[in-house]
């Protein structure tokens, strides 16, 4: 079955979309027409520039509405999230660790490179947690090390080795000019160069990070906005149990 879906304004399949953008052209009727043509070229019917304003010499701003015939087959849309429907609560997670691993799970986390946004990794690791979901430090069966902000990849790896970690959790928030991609890639390359990649479950997280991107970059999983400790814990535990089973 295919279910083509289109944007919806007030009638099914009307395709209505709101756009806004700046053009590097002077404000005036020609700019307005250029904006309209652009919206048309983007594949919109009924392209209407409903507002324009001068921003500066040679720059102008536009608000437009258009209608598109483009559709997405909703049935074919697949999301690969790191965790499925089933997410362990803290107590469940600890029970599984006790039962299946028989020892404490060791996790090292950090916000790496020059990134100093710790709120995200803290949300995952700190006692207090986030939105009424406790962080990993609260898990009785987890030994959690939060190295904080601006941790060089090298130091993170050394530390993970020194505490014999099961999992490494990396946070990256600043994404301008794809600095996060560079930094995440570097960590994996370093791990591989040292022959340590297989030793850890390595997860990335951040506002603009998803499972898809992280997996592409060589991580075991990626976590975006709305993640709680529960999600990462579930993923790490399941992955470790899997590995243990494979080894056995």
């Amino acid at each position, binding site marked *: 079955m295919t279910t083509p879906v289109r944007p*919806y*304004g*007030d*009638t099914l399949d009307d395709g*209505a979309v*709101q756009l*806004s953008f700046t053009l590097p052209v002077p404000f005036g009727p020609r700019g307005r027409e250029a904006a309209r043509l652009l919206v048309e070229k983007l594949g919109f019917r009924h392209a*209407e*520039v*409903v*507002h324009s*304003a001068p921003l500066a010499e040679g720059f102008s701003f536009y*608000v437009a*509405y258009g209608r598109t015939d483009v559709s997405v087959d909703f049935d074919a849309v697949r999301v690969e999230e790191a965790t499925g429907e089933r997410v362990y609560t803290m107590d469940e997670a600890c029970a599984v660790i006790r039962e299946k691993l028989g020892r404490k799970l060791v996790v090292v986390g950090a916000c790496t490179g020059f990134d100093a946004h710790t709120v995200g990794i803290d949300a995952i690791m700190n006692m207090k947690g986030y939105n009424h979901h406790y962080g990993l430090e609260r898990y009785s069966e987890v030994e959690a090390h939060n190295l904080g902000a601006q941790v060089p990849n090298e130091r993170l790896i050394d530390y993970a080795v020194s505490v014999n970690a099961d999992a490494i959790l990396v946070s990256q928030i600043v994404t301008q000019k794809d600095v996060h991609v560079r930094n995440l890639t570097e960590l994996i390359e370093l791990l591989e160069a040292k022959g340590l990649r297989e030793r850890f479950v390595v997860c990335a997280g951040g506002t603009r990070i998803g499972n898809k991107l992280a997996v592409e970059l060589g991580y075991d999983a990626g976590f975006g906005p709305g993640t709680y400790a529960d999600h990462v814990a579930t993923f790490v535990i399941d992955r470790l149990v899997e590995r243990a089973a494979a080894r056995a």
Partner: protein
Amino acid sequence: MESRLHLPPERITRGRELASRIVAPVQDFIDAHTTVTVERATLRLAGADGADADGVPVPNLVVDQVRDRLEEGALRFWVNALVRTGDDVVTLSRRVAGGFRLDGIPLADPVSLEAKAAELVSAASMRVRGNRKRREELLARHAGKNHSPLLYVIVATGNIHEDVKQARAAAAQGADVVAVIRTTAQSLLDYVPYGATTEGFGGTYATQENFRIMRAALDEEIERHGRYVHLTNYASGLCMPEIAVMGALERLDMMLNDSMYGILFRDINMYRTFVDQKFSRMVNAWAGVVINTGEDNYLTTSDAVEKAYTVLASQFLNERFALVAGLEPWQMGLGHAFEMDPALPDGFLLEVAQALMAREIFPEAPLKYMPPTKFMTGDVFRGVVQNALFNFASKLTGQGIHLLGMLTEAIHTPFMQDRYLALENAKYVMGSMAGLGEEITFRKDGVVVKRANQVLEEAVAFLEKVEGTGLMDAIATGLFADVKRPRDGGKGLDGLRKKGEGYWNPFETHLTRELGLGGGR
């Protein structure tokens, strides 16, 4: 409550007094007349319904048949036919739709006519009373769940079935009131279309079936969300009384109903409108409907600072016309609007002054506050800010019914997401500054206090002038809204009739009695 604006109570009293003197002579005129739509409304109350193959509604067919004898009241012919044929109302409606004429049937004896009429009045009463009771029960069951002010959104797709989707979404997002906007110019139709409709422009036809469909959908939403969702439609126009009846029968909760809107803004004949509004308001009063008056319309054409007093003057008149039609203060959703020029320095202060003034002068009325419209532009982002300030002003001054501004006001009738964003905006702003009104006092010699007092003075002065001229001549000479509406001009005058000696309308009599009103015949 003591006035926070230091408004002199005697000036407020003076405004009311003037309104009462202005309305009295108009009331005498009204009592002596009926109109085609008052007659059709009566027939609808008596069960006339449906339409012929050309779509002409049965009430129109009946009134057209007896056009020359309308001064007797159309109901007599309907009741007589029921008595004579023994049909029930549904059958008779169907027969009339098929061409059956009522005007030739010899009259039955007055006693059986009265008896039949009493039966019809009681059937209608039961239905309307049932609706009122249902509303009261639901409101009681979900007490405390609505926002204050009530968050009011419109749907206007033109297609009742799309409207239902939009209305359900709005309910899910927290709307307290859903108004189905009428198609462009329905107010100028001298009949009410029949059945479910899917083709309107800038709105959806007001039909009884559309009312029913929407009410049923919203009732489901009430159950789902545990919050009463009010339904609103428009009475205004050439069919005010009939649509009021439809609203009463289908449990609408609010209706746009202004004593002069049709005259000033739709060029409907003034005699016609005055007579129509009275009957429609009696029906609203009876049905427990909250009316929404149209003072906002003054400011869509005139300046909100210069002409602020026209809003207040009109509120005084609407209040008076409402009182004499039996509406209680809690049913008077008197209108005003946030149409202050965003470029005006301290415009927000003037707006707050005017909104709070209305609040203090009509303390029991659930004031209906309209959002910025005329200064909205295609800049949807600035529109969001204008709406935020409007939301702020409304909560700050304790308004009752809050029409949400749409960021796309200058572009199209609302998309589903527009309404969502409007509700988010209002919920956030009003939640975050909820207590501010209670926190603050205005400087006695400040801009806000001065402005409110000035507008009150101007309104009273204006009413003095209108009282001098008489309302009808005031309208004819252009004192209101900068338009001149001659007494004999405008649409629908041919539908006006002086009531004859033998005018018979047991429904009117019933309403007059129920509402404890004197007058009428």
